């Protein structure tokens, strides 16, 4: 199943104002892998992710999804393969009801009638949000918005899921819900996040970005043990690895 491979080669992106957000990034992600992209604010995570389905065009470098090189001609095909959940669900939900929003992608793929309806229901059921189908997206809570945003992408049945900060701004319960969803997926997953505890729990492989470059790429547990590396990239160990402060106090006494 070579078509679920993501290969980024010497990727570089310069914004119109001259900011070089990403410089010579290379990695290869194979079928079914779950990879976390972590890094400080402004490290270039979102910029990198936006390239993976051609939402941003690279200044230099190549992106290969399976056997297909990303070019203007292959972008439509690649967008079916790579599903992208954006950082802010308000940017992703733009129709007047949840059901219409979820149907937007499949409609563009040419689905209609019962098949379309089935897709919408299946995607909403998968994220446990079918009860929201007739609601307006802007009336949902943060957690609900996030789940619906994920459903809009699932409805297109992509092979590769790309998500930008899926647990950002969620309460503990909503965060758990999204994490359970994520762990249930069989897709190749690429997720940018500041939620290092989630990364530790769900993503065996981690790539650290620092000022637009790859600072480390390897097994999550190895990377999180390297405190010096994390500090250099303005990161910290996940709380789960820091030891419980209450117990530590107790041990001293």
């Amino acid at each position, binding site marked *: 199943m070579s078509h679920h491979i993501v290969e980024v080669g010497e990727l570089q992106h310069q914004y119109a104002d001259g900011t070089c957000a990403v410089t010579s990034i290379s990695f290869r992600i194979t079928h079914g892998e779950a990879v976390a992209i972590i890094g400080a604010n402004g490290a270039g995570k979102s910029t990198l992710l*936006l390239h993976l*389905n051609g*939402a*941003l065009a690279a200044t230099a470098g190549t992106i290969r999804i399976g056997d297909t090189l990303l070019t203007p001609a292959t972008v*439509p095909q690649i*967008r*079916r393969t790579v*599903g*992208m959940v*954006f950082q*802010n669900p*308000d*940017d*992703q939900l*733009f*129709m*007047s*009801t949840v059901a*219409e929003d979820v*149907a*937007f*992608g499949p*409609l*563009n*793929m040419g689905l*209609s*009638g019962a098949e*379309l309806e089935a897709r919408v229901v299946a995607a909403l059921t998968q994220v446990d949000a079918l009860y929201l189908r*007739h609601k*307006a997206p*802007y009336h949902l809570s943060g957690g609900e918005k996030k789940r619906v945003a994920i459903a*809009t*992408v699932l409805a*297109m049945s992509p092979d590769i899921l790309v998500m930008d900060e899926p647990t950002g701004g969620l309460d503990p319960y909503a965060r758990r819900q999204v994490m359970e969803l994520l762990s249930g997926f069989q897709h190749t997953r690429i997720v940018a996040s500041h939620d290092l505890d989630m990364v530790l729990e769900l993503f065996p492989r981690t790539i650290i970005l620092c000022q637009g470059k790859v600072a480390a790429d390897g097994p999550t547990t190895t990377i999180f043990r390297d405190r010096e590396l994390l500090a250099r990239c303005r990161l910290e160990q996940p709380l789960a690895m820091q030891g419980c402060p209450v117990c530590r106090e107790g041990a001293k006494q």
Partner: protein
Amino acid sequence: MRSVEGALLDFRQLERLAERDSPLHHVDARAKILATLVFIICVISLGRYQLAALFPFFIFPVVLIAGGGLPVRYLVSKILLVIPFVLVVGIFNPLLDREIVAIAGPVQISGGWISFFSIVLRSLLTVASALILVSLTGFPALCRGLAQLGLPKVFVAQLLFLYRYLFVLAEEAARLKLARDQRCFGGKGTGLASFGTMIGHLLLRSWERAERVYRSMLSRGFAGEFHCPSGSSFGVGDTLFLLGWGLLLLAIRLYDPARLLGLLLTGGVQ
């Protein structure tokens, strides 16, 4: 000026009206568009002195508001918003056109006043019918109807974008205003100076947000065309709705029931 949040809420309320469930809401958008179009043409094509002939046309908005269970007070408040504009257009008529055309007891009525009221009424009627159309159909469905009627897809996409980005703009404005209000304690901030930068900010932020929304549309396979969810078919009910209103409105336009009634009452002598 009314608050940005208020205006936004109002707009959303209009959208929510379209989610109600009445037989009129289920009539095909095309039937409603065409009936409204016939209505508007009939009303607009009346002569400037045909004031009485306008009154029978109230049947269209009244029946639709009642049948659709629309909130009268809300709609009237929206419709009255156009009054200032209409006044500006029509206010010179009574001054310019002083020829007396009717005498009601001691009061002499000039042609200018008649045409002035005719302008006001015609404006209210057309605005009311347009608002009712949106409240009974919803803007997205309306655009779809227009597309099905043969309006070029590019225009329809433009309309939908306009609608979508109107929300984007209003939401950004609401956020910006909140941020300002929190830090100027009921005063006017630094007045015009900060207002200028705020407007600039607003445009830039809306622009970037619009770009992100567009990106997310592209990511979901958008290729410049909004698709209709179901091949909604034009049923018997829709045909009846269109035919019924079309014939009734044309009859009112051609035979002017107000004048007929007048003739009847005065025994046919003019």
